[in-house]
């Protein structure tokens, strides 16, 4: 029963209960002109199937088993922020908790094809925001979304993931551990019922919920045609504050963010830029902890300062630091072991913030 049909029916009947009591003929009359014949047939078929008490009961039991709650828009618990938007979902399925009404929340989004820089930034921003008691909302996708959730958990905060499929479908599979953790450290929300597959068509709709549940949206990294820009657009329409991290002017991966800033999104360099807009006064800088670095040996410092958030190849590191390969390898090993740097892919190193 897709949203459009639902909307038509609700408009005519007023309350969902009326839909339940509809006879097939009435349904056909109501929808007749609006739908093509074969679509109409399918709807009628599913309608009569789902109308039986049996199947409804089965659905209900399935929800119970999976510990999923269904919250309709006229329920107490339905998120107020979400209710404000133009086309809020009739009902949402929830596993775990819903975002707090009292605390501020920020949605963190970005391109799926992210760079190590984007992923690191998402994680760090989420972490620092979480430390200031801000909740983080994202889409549990690979890359930036996942890192935002992880960063928030690292900062001790609560994070919520909105899905483009049924809550029982863990997509993408690699995020399974994150899923499980988020049931306790936040929640997982979806507009779609159990068993619904992650079809690409669902995602723009899911994005409106991401922006709908947040007070502000941070776009970390986006190419010119990125889906995360749609989320920002929707956020704008919903009256949310839009933040964007700038990238180098020639970087394709940051082109979307840079354009957003041109169009009026707030340019963010530090967490404090966001905190200020949220009304929280705090001098927070994204700084490398100077103390920790000072404790390194000279040759280690040399290698460390040679690196940045842009991945660097081992041959180049050795050459710039004027060391032999063996010396460089030994130092990189110690720095990596102690968490100062990490390998994004083999033989390429970046600093850890």
């Amino acid at each position, binding site marked *: 029963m897709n949203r459009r049909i639902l909307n038509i029916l609700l408009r005519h009947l007023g309350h969902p209960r009326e839909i339940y009591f509809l006879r097939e003929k009435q349904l056909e009359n109501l929808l007749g002109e609006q739908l093509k014949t074969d679509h109409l047939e399918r709807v009628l078929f599913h309608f009569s199937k789902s109308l039986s008490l049996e199947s409804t009961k089965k659905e209900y039991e399935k929800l119970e088993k999976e510990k999923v709650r269904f919250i309709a828009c006229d329920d107490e618990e339905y998120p107020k922020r979400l209710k404000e938007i133009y086309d809020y979902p009739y009902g949402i399925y929830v596993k775990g908790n819903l975002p707090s009404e009292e605390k501020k929340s920020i949605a963190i989004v970005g391109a799926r094809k992210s760079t190590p820089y984007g992923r690191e930034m998402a994680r760090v921003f989420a972490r620092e925001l979480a430390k200031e008691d801000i909740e983080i909302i994202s889409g549990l996708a690979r890359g930036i979304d996942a890192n935002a959730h992880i960063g928030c958990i690292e900062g001790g905060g609560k994070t919520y993931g909105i899905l483009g499929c049924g809550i029982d479908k863990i997509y993408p599979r690699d995020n399974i551990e994150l899923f499980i953790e988020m049931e306790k450290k936040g929640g997982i929300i979806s507009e779609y019922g159990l068993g619904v597959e992650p079809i690409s068509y669902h995602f723009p709709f899911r994005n409106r919920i991401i922006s709908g549940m947040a007070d502000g949206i941070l776009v970390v990294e986006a190419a010119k045609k990125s889906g995360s820009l749609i989320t920002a657009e929707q956020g704008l329409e919903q009256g949310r504050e839009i933040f964007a991290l700038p990238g180098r002017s020639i970087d*394709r991966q940051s082109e979307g963010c840079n354009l957003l800033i041109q169009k009026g999104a707030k340019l963010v360099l530090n967490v404090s830029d966001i905190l200020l807009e949220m009304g929280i006064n705090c001098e927070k800088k994204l700084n490398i902890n100077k103390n920790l670095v000072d404790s390194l040996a000279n040759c280690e410092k040399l290698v460390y300062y040679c690196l940045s958030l842009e991945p660097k*190849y081992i*041959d180049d590191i*050795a050459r710039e630091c004027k060391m032999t*390969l063996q010396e460089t*390898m030994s130092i990189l*090993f110690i720095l990596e*072991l102690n968490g100062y740097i990490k390998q994004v892919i083999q033989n390429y190193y970046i600093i850890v913030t």
Partner: protein
Amino acid sequence: MYSKVVSGIVKGIDGVLIYVEADMSNGLPIFEMVGYLSSELKEAKERVRTALKNQGYTIPSKKITVNLLPADLRKDGSAFDLPIAIAMLISSGQISQEKTDKIFFAGELGLDGSLYTIRGVLPLVCCAKEAGMKTCILPRDNLKEGSLVDEITVLGASSLREVEQFLNGKLSLSKLEKEEDMEEKISKKVLDFSDIIGQEYAKRAIQVAVSGRHNMLLFGPPGSGKSMLTKRIPYIAPKLTKKESLELTKIYSVKGYLKEKQGLILERPFRNPHHSITLPALIGGGRPVTPGEITLSHNGILFLDELLEFPKNVLESLRQPLEDKKVLVSRVDEQYVFPADIMMVAATNLCPCGYYPDMKRCNCKEKDIVRYQKKLSGPFFDRIDISVKIRPLSYIELQSEKRGSSSFDLQSQIKNAVAIQKERYEKEEINFNSQLSDQQIAKYCDMEENAKKSLQEVMRRKKWSARAYFRVIRVARTIADLAGSDKILNTHIVEAISYHFQF
């Protein structure tokens, strides 16, 4: 009259002695050939009959039977033309049997009676010598190859008549002409590592891989230099021993790959099969059973470029040979064992277009990237000891005047390391560090305390398997050998860890 002549076939890469019998008796004139013969071998009948006629010999109209002994061994090839013709000449009284005593015959006959070259001469001559033969009569153009075997006289002829005349004492046949320098001049085109600017890390990794014969994986975008680096590897390994050369020449002879009039193979092989290769072509098989690319790379390099384009079943078939250093091909009646002690080098990209993680150039959809990278795991990758990311040179490097390490720079250390391993494993069945079993590691790989600690830390943090643990130690053992150190030090372990394939 009954006659018997000695010849042979090649089974796998070794020769097997075969007796050619002929008999003529009264009865309807028919010519029968028996003895479990392949169809192309049965055609010998026509060639031999016509060749005999054209060389001026008359064969009486009698019942002729030719048998190839033993009868339960399948025979093929065209090398039996000559021995069959000789056997028939003996049977018809034109040569006496004793004249062919302790002589081995092989060669293909044209319809005019000329002798043509055959394959697999080296294994045939070896087998003739082992069977106690004193002389081999072969086609003239096979002389060079046949003469590689000591302690047996190898003579060349260019026609059937020459052989008959020789046997009847009216002509002498020549051995290999002039004291040709058996050392074939190594091709002038020696590829050198100094042709490659920079890429020091990759060159070092290759040096380690060659020293311990570790399998390698190179990954990087198109044009970054993977092929270029790999092609130069055979030139920094130590020279082949005489025994290795002989074995290799046998293999290439059987396959028919020896160049015309080529003698001993002196360069390490470098084989680069396309990813559309079939499984039997890669590991061996077919009918008749011949060695595959992996055996052609014996004691050399097998380069698998575009690794992920190879079908999964083909890669799977490599697992056992990589482990055992040999290939077992089973047929209903036989089992063949081909040597396959190779160094495998594989090259691959990190995404379908090849440019990942360079986001500026990579145009792939995220799901394609993930799907591609999921293929980079599994039992095959468990056999890769050393893996290196290669990337195109930066502008600064291209500008610099220094050339970087040359083949010469890399060679001497490799030679020492290989010698150390030879001495260390004299009593063992292995030759290189990469072949150490998990039990042998405890015996030969003594590590200093710091090295042990580093390894433990990494294992704990990255949750490595036992396989990874032993793999790193084997590589570290080679690194220590290159440094001339008996004990494995921390720096050696650290370097070995950096070569571990992480994904």
